[in-house]
């Protein structure tokens, strides 16, 4: 299922706007200030920035850190919807495919909401209204009262078939893992629709490379998490197709042996970018540092691509990633301050 609009891509217009917006994101100084603020100060600070409109609009219904969080989501949705409004032709298709990321987020939120019997209002607050699903459709989904109903409603989307397949597993085991896994896999399986195998060293080829890197990193992360947790899970069941680094059979073997996995990543094309992080990983106990390193490596990679091919989808992707990181950083700071974490602890959580 692909999205198509008429005409050719308007890269010039979209990249100009996107670059301008990227330049306006919070920089290191802003984060340094934010980390040292209390929860109410953060809210006040946000009211004076980019997030002013959302903070004011939601101020009547929420307060404190919740307000910050909902404002962040709303703002994210607004900016990403703008991207879709501006773009035309193949560019629209690329962006829409990538923004399905938020469809997966929404579907998971809905499934979890129904599973925990959350209020309709609460579920709706947590949705991020961007991506392929329209507002109406999301509202109808939020009205669903059982997971079966949700699966039926989603029948005509990319998530339909995988969800229907996973539904029997859910019914027999009573856990959400198979459903959520199906959603993620559907997203990654459709990520590279419409791209095919482009000529090497063209913008489209680089876009493909970027998506492959994202899938590879996702696989590495999953494998490491499974290896660390020591849980008796088959890593191959969580493997995403389409990457360059592993094949499904390999990951099963590598996940049981962290050292081999690290050696494998070091030899790969990502070795240079991740060298420092890999060293940390070998002597650290936690995966957090490494996962952040993966995030920032991806961010840097997207930035590199967007400089190499100014008139392509790469600057847009780089902006999408940077904006997502900003939202995650602010959320981490707000939640961290609320929980009373120290400045140092919060700073290790930030990805720049």
């Amino acid at each position: 299922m692909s999205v198509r609009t008429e005409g050719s891509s308007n890269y010039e217009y979209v990249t100009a706007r996107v670059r301008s917006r990227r330049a306006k994101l919070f920089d290191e100084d802003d984060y340094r200030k934010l980390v040292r603020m209390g929860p109410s100060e953060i809210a006040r600070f946000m009211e004076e920035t980019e997030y002013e409109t959302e903070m004011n609009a939601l101020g009547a219904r929420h307060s404190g850190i919740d307000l910050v969080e909902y404002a962040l989501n709303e703002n994210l949705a607004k900016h990403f919807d703008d991207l879709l409004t501006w773009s035309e032709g193949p560019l629209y298709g690329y962006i829409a495919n990538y923004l399905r990321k938020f469809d997966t987020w929404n579907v998971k939120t809905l499934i979890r909401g129904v599973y925990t019997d959350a209020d309709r209002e609460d579920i709706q607050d947590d949705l991020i209204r961007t991506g392929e699903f329209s507002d109406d459709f999301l509202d109808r989904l939020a009205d669903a009262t059982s997971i079966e109903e949700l699966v039926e409603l989603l029948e005509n989307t990319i998530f339909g078939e995988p969800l229907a397949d996973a539904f029997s597993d859910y019914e027999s085991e009573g856990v959400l893992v198979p459903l959520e896994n199906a959603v993620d896999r559907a997203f990654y399986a459709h990520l590279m629709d419409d791209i095919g195998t482009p000529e090497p060293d063209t913008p489209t080829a680089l876009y493909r490379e970027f998506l492959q890197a994202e899938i590879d990193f996702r696989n590495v992360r999953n494998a490491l998490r499974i290896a660390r947790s020591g849980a008796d899970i088959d890593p191959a069941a969580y493997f995403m197709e389409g990457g360059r680094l592993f094949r499904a059979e390999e990951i099963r073997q590598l996940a049981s042996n962290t050292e081999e996995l690290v050696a494998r990543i070091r030899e790969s094309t990502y070795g240079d970018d991740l060298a420092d992080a890999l060293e940390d990983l070998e002597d650290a106990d936690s995966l957090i540092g490494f996962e952040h390193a993966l995030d920032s490596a991806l961010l840097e990679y997207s930035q590199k691509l967007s400089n190499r091919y100014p008139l392509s989808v790469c600057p847009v992707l780089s902006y999408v990633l940077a904006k997502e990181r900003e939202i995650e950083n602010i959320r981490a700071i707000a939640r961290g301050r609320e929980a009373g974490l120290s400045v140092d602890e919060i700073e290790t959580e930030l990805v720049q």
Partner: protein
Amino acid sequence: MELAAALSSVAPVLQAAENAGPALTAPGAAALAVGLAALGAGIAERGIGAAAMGAIAENEDLFGRGLIMTVLPETLVILALVVVFVV
């Protein structure tokens, strides 16, 4: 016999064409040069204009700079106009 008759009827026409000189006169060529230059400038301005509009939409202060950048390829047409005076 018929062929010779046909040739003799065509020959004066061919001669007339030779007498008329080149198909494109000097002013005509100059006009074409200006036209092509203007077309090139238009193609160049398409991308720049789109990018400038994007920048202006984000930040209105960029209006002046955007305008200047957009009309820069117009210098091409002015240079091509010189050809008109040279010929």
